[in-house]
């Protein structure tokens, strides 16, 4: 009862149990947020912290997140590492291959804005948001697995606020 009072639901006691009334959108958003499957897309150093976050001590599985190798089977892409000009078309292709609704987390300084390679580098794309829309930015070089988890939790809050009509469009509610 205490838990139900915090959720956006109507709870009614009936003989034999209870009835919960809520919007379909809430249930679907909640189920999607609790089971975000991420694509293994590690480019550079941040990929190792992503692996650590998925491994023994900081377990991603308890958040419902498991890794999938294929973009068709995942709804979240961590851009973990530096994106170079040579790699950029492939990142865009992978993003396009994911099916909607899809989310992107820019992990680390390099994916956010070029990182330590912003100045004096001729081949680094200064931020992955130049080619794909990003939902959550996680600063750090590399960000600790705890930061990564906080980023994922913020994304889950964002997903829970989504409207069904926005699922098939690549529109991010502000």
């Amino acid at each position, binding site marked *: 009862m205490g838990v139900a009072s915090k959720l956006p639901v109507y709870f009614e006691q009936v003989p034999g149990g209870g009835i919960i009334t809520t919007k379909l959108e809430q249930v679907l958003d909640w189920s999607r947020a609790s089971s975000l499957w991420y694509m293994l897309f590690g480019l550079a150093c941040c990929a190792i912290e992503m692996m650590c976050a998925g491994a023994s001590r900081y377990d991603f599985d308890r958040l419902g997140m498991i890794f999938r190798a294929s973009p068709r089977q995942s709804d979240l892409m961590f851009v973990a590492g530096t994106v170079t000009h040579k790699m950029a078309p492939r990142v865009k292709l992978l993003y396009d291959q994911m099916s909607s609704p899809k989310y992107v987390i820019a992990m680390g300084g390099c994916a956010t804005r070029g990182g330590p390679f912003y100045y*004096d580098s001729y*081949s680094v794309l200064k931020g992955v948001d130049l080619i794909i829309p990003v939902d959550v930015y996680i600063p750090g070089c590399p960000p600790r697995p705890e930061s990564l988890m906080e980023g994922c939790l913020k994304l889950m809050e964002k997903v829970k606020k989504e409207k069904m009509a926005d699922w098939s469009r690549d529109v991010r509610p502000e």
Partner: protein
Amino acid sequence: MSDQSDMVKSLIAAFPGKVIALELAPEQAAVLVGASAVRDFFRHLKSDDKLRFDYLSSLSGVDAGEHLEVVYHIFSTVTKAKLTVKVQLPTENAEIHSICDIYRATDWYEREIRELYGIEVLNHPDMRPLLLPEDWDQGPPMRKGWTGRDFIVKPE
């Protein structure tokens, strides 16, 4: 070390007029080789019984301002000897012979100096770009003073 300087003296004697000794640092054997003698020199280093240089660790291009340099760092796992070989090239129309049939390790190193420094490597089997995108059209980026489209210089 005396055996290092003996080795350098024997190399100079084997290639008169094409090889000079360089003084880079104490205990560091180094020679400067003329660009035309590069292939014969490395063949000699590999096949000579006393030298037995079998491990070419690194090949770098250097932009030294007035000229370009190609620097080879070569070692022997048998005699534990070390040698630095430099070749000086002009900044315009720099050309060097490939040694990738003598030391297979230089295959990709030579592709790299071509795209990053603009040094043409003759008789290399595969001169496609290695590190840069295939549609790179901004010239060799490792040259001093190069600027390009997405190149932001760090302010002082």
